[in-house]
């Protein structure tokens, strides 16, 4: 259990106490925000203001650095910009053109790509599990995946700090490195109740949490109202995203967030071999921001794309791409969702989708033919997403609409299966160009046998849970969740793009601090780990 006091958390990151009484970013913060000039040589410029970028910004500002984050999307005002509506939340996603391919193409957009200050954490469910200690050495333990140049104990203090700063609510966590959470678990809705009931009857251990929604006093963050629209951006300001958990403190310490700025290239000094700043487009004009350190945090598709688009005589195939590693080993989790039908009314759209999880199947089970494992969590699709579930069964027309009329009777769980990092799963540049004239990303995905076995095994467990809870019918949709990898960390430049401190091997003052540096993904939602890795990188950089 954490022994840190609230005062100590506030001492480290005052964001929650800087919000208005309604939990929003005070408008005067944006008005009075420090604004640097392109000519100012910043101590660091950060590309992207999501989980990795915003954490870096806040930490480096606290170290007294002159730092700015350039964000392609807008600086959100949740009350006016977001809606409590599924279809009208489209603007939260990265919707610039991208191509997908491979034997198992992964749809992007709404499911996994964010845009705007706060990044994908604006529309993530809110689950914030840690990785297990075993995730950091799957290659030596199981002969699959990769070993990190970083161990779990090195990351643990950062997990603890970020859990306190979000903060995270949940039951005592018995899996991985057992630990408690700063806030008590939330009450559950119908979907969570079905999960707990099924788990108890099936003899599977399940726990409530871990969810980055405070359940108790935390600065000016309002309490959750259990309205179920976590994936549409939390207008309540209850669910954590960097927009409310790290940006306010960063601004209070002199950082700048420059929204609506698309970074198009990283400039290199051929003589020194160092990065000198970034090219970006704002209001249709090309600009250049000078900086002594460049930090890229554009996530697993845009980070590789930016590096590949940043060519120079020294790096003709893209920045940091001497060993053809940029864009490779990109991973998604296999995320089948299984729903069960009950005569009772479940009304899964009420209460946050993230409620209950089990990590009982997370680790390699020597009795199984596959390596590594999966976790299972509640997910609660709203009507449009639920319609995709039903249509995935092949239903359409009158039959489909009849099926949909049954919505209130369904409970739905999702698995996160640890797909393995494969070199051919990668971002490359497509022929097609975006409106800035830059080649767009092509993202190829192929599943290996181990991946497919995990999806089948996870589906069976979800069917078991739902059947034990009393479901008389189950339907499963195969899909994907999350993105990590694409510029992974490793011990040396022949195996990765960055080192354990997120510094690129090829350019001494260029860092990557987003999900793309993760060498493996476990069966955990990646947000907490991305923030923890970034917070550690900030300490290492500032103390260098």
């Amino acid at each position, binding site marked *: 259990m954490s022994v840190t006091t609230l005062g100590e958390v506030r001492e480290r990151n005052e964001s929650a106490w800087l919000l208005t009484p309604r939990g929003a970013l005070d408008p005067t913060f944006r008005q009075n925000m420090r604004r640097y000039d392109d000519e100012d040589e910043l101590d660091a410029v950060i590309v992207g203001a999501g989980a990795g970028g915003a954490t870096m910004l806040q930490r480096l500002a606290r170290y007294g650095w002159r730092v700015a984050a350039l964000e392609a999307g807008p600086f959100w005002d949740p009350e006016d910009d977001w809606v409590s509506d599924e279809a009208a939340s489209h603007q939260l996603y990265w919707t610039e053109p991208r191509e*997908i391919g491979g034997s198992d193409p992964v749809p992007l957009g709404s499911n996994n790509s964010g845009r705007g200050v706060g990044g994908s954490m604006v529309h993530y469910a809110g689950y914030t599990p840690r990785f297990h200690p075993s995730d950091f050495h799957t290659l030596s333990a199981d002969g699959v995946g990769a070993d990190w140049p970083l161990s779990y104990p090195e990351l643990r203090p950062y997990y603890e700090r970020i859990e306190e700063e979000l903060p995270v609510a949940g039951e005592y966590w018995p899996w991985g490195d057992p630990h408690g959470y700063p806030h008590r678990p939330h009450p559950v809705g119908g979907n969570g109740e079905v999960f707990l009931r099924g788990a108890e009857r099936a003899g599977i251990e399940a726990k409530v949490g871990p969810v980055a929604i405070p359940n108790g006093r935390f600065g000016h963050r309002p309490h959750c109202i259990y309205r179920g629209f976590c994936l549409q951006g939390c207008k*309540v300001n209850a669910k954590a995203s960097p927009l409310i958990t790290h940006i306010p403190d960063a601004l209070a310490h002199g950082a700048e967030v420059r929204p609506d700025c698309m970074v198009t290239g990283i400039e290199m000094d051929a003589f020194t071999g160092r990065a000198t700043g970034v090219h970006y487009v704002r209001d249709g004009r090309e600009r250049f921001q000078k900086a002594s350190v460049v930090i890229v945090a554009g996530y697993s598709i845009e980070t590789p794309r930016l590096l590949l688009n940043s060519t120079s005589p020294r790096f003709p195939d893209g920045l940091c791409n001497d060993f053809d590693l940029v864009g490779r080993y990109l991973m998604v989790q296999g995320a089948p969702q299984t729903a069960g039908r009950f005569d009772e009314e479940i009304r899964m759209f009420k209460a946050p989708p993230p409620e209950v999880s089990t990590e009982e199947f997370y680790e390699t089970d020597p009795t199984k033919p596959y390596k590594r494992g999966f976790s299972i969590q509640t997910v609660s699709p*709203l009507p449009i997403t639920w319609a*995709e579930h039903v*249509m*995935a069964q092949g239903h359409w027309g009158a039959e489909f609409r009849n*099926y949909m009329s049954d919505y209130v009777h369904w409970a739905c769980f999702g698995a996160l299966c640890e797909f393995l990092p494969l070199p051919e799963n990668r971002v490359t540049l497509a022929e097609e160009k975006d409106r800035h004239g830059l080649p767009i990303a092509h993202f190829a995905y192929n599943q290996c046998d181990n991946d497919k076995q995990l999806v089948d095994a996870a589906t069976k467990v979800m069917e078991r849970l739902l059947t034990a809870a009393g479901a*008389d019918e189950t339907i499963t949709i195969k899909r994907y969740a999350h993105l990590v990898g694409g510029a992974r960390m490793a011990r040396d430049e022949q195996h990765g793009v960055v080192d354990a401190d997120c510094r690129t091997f090829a350019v001494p003052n260029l860092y990557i601090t987003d999900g793309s540096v993760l060498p493996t993904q476990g069966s955990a939602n990646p947000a907490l780990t991305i923030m923890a890795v970034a917070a550690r990188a900030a300490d290492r950089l500032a103390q260098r």
Partner: protein
Amino acid sequence: MSERRAPSSRALPLDPQDGGGRFPGFDVMNHEKHWDTATKAAVHARLHGQPAVRFFTQLEEATAKCLLDRLVGQRSAPGDETVDLSRMVDARLAENQTDGWHYDTMPRDSEAWRASLKALNEDAHDRFGKDLSECTHEDQCELIEAVRTWPDDRWHDLPPAQVWSLWTRYAATAFYSHPAVWNEIGFDGPAYPRGYKALGVDKREPFEVRDARPNDDPARPSRGEGDAGHDTRRATGQSGRQKQGGDGS
């Protein structure tokens, strides 16, 4: 509920056999006064601010209307309430409000829509000698089902699985964003700043209406007989075209 005004979203025609009338009297729009300003504006624009058709040609519009209505099972007689799906999809394509990504075997969404509508109408001419929109309801359904079950990798010059995915994604997004359709599935719609208090299985807020036919599982084979026993039906789908009966394991 003290005052009950006339429902502002009239019910869509839907026979009880097809899932209609399960939530008698439930109307999401009666609670609009509890919504925040931004959400209210978004839903109002959807109901009352759909722009005129700009993207589709006349023939594409006729084909799209037919296709979209058939996909979601919308069939209306003159005077019936309908959800104007072709205008909603037209607006998204005109404004390039896509998800951004596209399969590398497919063109961008706007081109894919034009090409697939053209192909579907060509099928109607090949098979029935007239435009899709002039065909009978049954013939239209047959032509659409043929695309879903198309056995080859290419249908005209397009991959049929990806075409089916494109059509159904746009159709479902438009249809299930409409309050009148929320009413028929018992979904409460926008919930900020009100939120929910009655969480849990079989719990309802005071304004929620209980399903009048809770045993009416459209997928249960022995409907009404009430005993599914341990015979849980299982089904799995992926790209949206599969249709597998429960294996009754």
